[in-house]
């Protein structure tokens, strides 16, 4: 498959001791920038806590909600974070079962992103409740009054789906880290060695463990894929199971799943550039991997845009008065600036990813990925708010812009996510060591195979003779003392 230099994901001659050292180095000695980021995240989160305390004491009126607008940014943000969690599953589970080797250096942080964005998303259905202290009533526990939650409600499906997804993806992350925990147990000292010793569960890497590990990991991947699809379908049911124009849309489940993968891939691109830059992971998070991720994102952007325009088209040709008026109002009414921002960010901007030069230019891709996420956030908000603003009953039409309490909580959720992620990268390896080792082996074997075939005169891949692409030269640590290689791009 990947047998031309073009497809080379990383340097196959990377020494395995080097891999261990590089990853362990990335986990130690946080620099000043790290502590500044932590401080920023903590203060952002603190804003959200203040806002939530105020909202808790005073009631949901502080969030500026009113009769038609019973939900607003909270639900949009919920969908946004749930969506972001899907890319980790895509990258680790789907690419795992199709044996895409290039996922290996980057899937770990993508999975961590999945778990943490779920932990963030989980807050939003909770804090938007009027009586959050009775939250446990959505759980199906045996009560002597014989009262059960309502299993017909998409909101109670959410509770099931999110808890299943959160536990499954966290387990997937933990199980996948066991061999790395063993590495860290053996090569760190002090509290780290103790903690990793517990988390490694006594892993020694014998053949029985590897066999069962391989099978377990594959089985979990196979269950995570339908689970991820079902989770976002269920989130979409919050809208599509309702009766409102603009919500009651048949294509919502696949549309949401595509949107989830889209925003998630954009988030992976953002974090990819950050990790590559801050942790000097140029040997692992290579430009070739970035390029593959970007191509994947571009493809998903295509799917998402298709589904978006299918939705518009079916409304346009459907002649439902409510839906059509709503669609026109979205594009021309008070919310039009947001609508056109969404169209710009998630339909126009992705075309930058069609150019190889730009795909390999890290600063551009960083900015593009932020644009894509902005686009996807506005898209979620464009689903929630305009429908509530312009539903069936014209007497109850109202335009609402969220006041500061909602913004503070939404803003703080990014701080919370960032905080979790920052703790993660210093406590756990953000690059999977054992799988990078497997990747080098795999590449060696493939190149060997190719060499043998070429010698036997069996085939000559075109790209084998082509000059290496800019950025393909894998620099060793000693080569990159000056400046920040990789950031200057192509």
């Amino acid at each position, binding site marked *: 498959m990947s047998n031309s230099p073009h497809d080379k994901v990383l340097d196959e001659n990377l*020494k*395995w*001791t080097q891999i*261990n050292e590089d990853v362990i180095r990335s986990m130690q000695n946080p620099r000043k920038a790290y502590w500044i980021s932590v401080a920023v995240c903590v203060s952002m989160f603190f804003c959200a806590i203040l806002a939530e305390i105020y909202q808790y004491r005073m009631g949901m009126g502080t969030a500026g909600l009113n009769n038609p607008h019973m939900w607003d940014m909270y639900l949009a943000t919920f969908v946004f974070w749930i969506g972001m969690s899907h890319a980790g599953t895509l990258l680790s589970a789907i690419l795992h079962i199709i044996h895409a080797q290039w996922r290996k250096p980057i899937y770990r942080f993508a999975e961590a992103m999945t778990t943490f964005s779920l932990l963030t998303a989980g807050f939003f259905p909770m804090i938007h409740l009027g009586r959050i202290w009775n939250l446990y009533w959505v759980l*199906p526990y045996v009560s002597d009054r*014989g*009262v*059960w939650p*309502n*299993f*017909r409600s998409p909101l109670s*499906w959410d509770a*099931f*789906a999110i*808890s*299943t997804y959160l*536990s*499954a993806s966290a*387990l997937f992350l933990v*199980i996948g880290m*066991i*061999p790395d925990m*063993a*590495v860290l*147990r*053996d*090569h760190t000292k002090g509290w780290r060695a103790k903690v990793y010793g517990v988390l490694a*569960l*006594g*892993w*020694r*890497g*014998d*053949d*029985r*463990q*590897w*066999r*069962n*590990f*391989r*099978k*377990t990991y594959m*089985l*979990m991947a196979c*269950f*995570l894929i*339908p*689970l991820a699809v*079902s989770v976002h379908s*269920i989130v979409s*049911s919050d809208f599509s199971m309702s009766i409102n124009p603009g919500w009651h849309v048949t294509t919502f489940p696949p549309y949401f799943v595509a949107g989830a993968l889209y925003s998630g891939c954009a988030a992976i691109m953002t974090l990819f550039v950050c990790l590559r830059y801050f942790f000097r992971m140029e040997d692992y998070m290579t430009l070739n991997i970035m390029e593959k991720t970007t191509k994947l994102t571009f493809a998903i952007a295509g799917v998402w845009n298709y589904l978006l325009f299918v939705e518009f088209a079916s409304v346009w040709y459907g002649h439902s008065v409510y839906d059509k008026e709503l669609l026109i109002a979205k594009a021309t009414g008070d919310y039009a600036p947001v609508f056109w921002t969404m169209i710009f960010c998630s339909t126009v901007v992705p075309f930058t990813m069609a150019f190889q030069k730009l795909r390999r230019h890290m600063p551009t891709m960083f900015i593009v990925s932020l644009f894509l996420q902005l686009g996807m956030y506005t898209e979620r908000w464009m689903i929630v708010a305009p429908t509530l603003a312009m539903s069936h009953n014209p007497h109850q039409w109202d335009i609402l812009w969220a006041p500061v309490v909602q913004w503070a909580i939404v803003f703080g959720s990014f701080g919370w996510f960032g905080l979790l992620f920052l703790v993660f990268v210093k406590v756990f390896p953000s690059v999977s060591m*054992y*799988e990078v*080792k*497997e990747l080098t*082996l795999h590449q060696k074997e493939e190149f060997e195979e190719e060499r043998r075939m070429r010698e036997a005169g069996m085939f000559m891949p075109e790209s084998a003779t082509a000059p290496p692409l800019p950025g393909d030269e894998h620099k060793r640590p000693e080569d990159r003392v000056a400046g920040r290689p990789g950031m200057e791009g192509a």
Partner: protein
Amino acid sequence: MASKHKMLALYDDFEECFKAIKAIRGGAVKGVTVDDLTVLSPVDHHGIDEALGPRPVNVQRFTLLGALFGVTFGFFFLASAQASFLVQPQGGKPVVPLPTNFVLMYEMLIFFAVWTTVLVFPVLSGLFKKRDSLYSEKLTVDHMGVIVEEVDGHNLDAMKDFFKNNKAVEIREEKI
């Protein structure tokens, strides 16, 4: 009766390691069969399975059981909860609405399948044990190791020689 020994041979060249295993499988050392061998490795190398020959994996059976349990439990749990909660019918919908219950049955299928897999995995793969005293930290860097679980005293030297001749970089042993 002769003493029993346990032996670990470390390899930095994986191909040599596989060759040695295949030789033992072919009966190169008397009294030691391939079933006595445990191979330690830093990565999941397909060569190990080829060298050792078929060894069973049973996780998937438990996963299947978990999935089946999840989906049946899901149905009966939901239906019996709904059927004992008759006082609050809703929206002209049946007491036990199948289309919506399917959604939750599906979630429960996955939930139980994943949890059984995860709970069974440490048991089947023999985790939660103390690593033995022969364990080398090189095994989590770039060395492979072959453990011979049980060597009779009179075979010990033959075994050692075999590993030496087969380019093992380090040999450790202990009495058991």
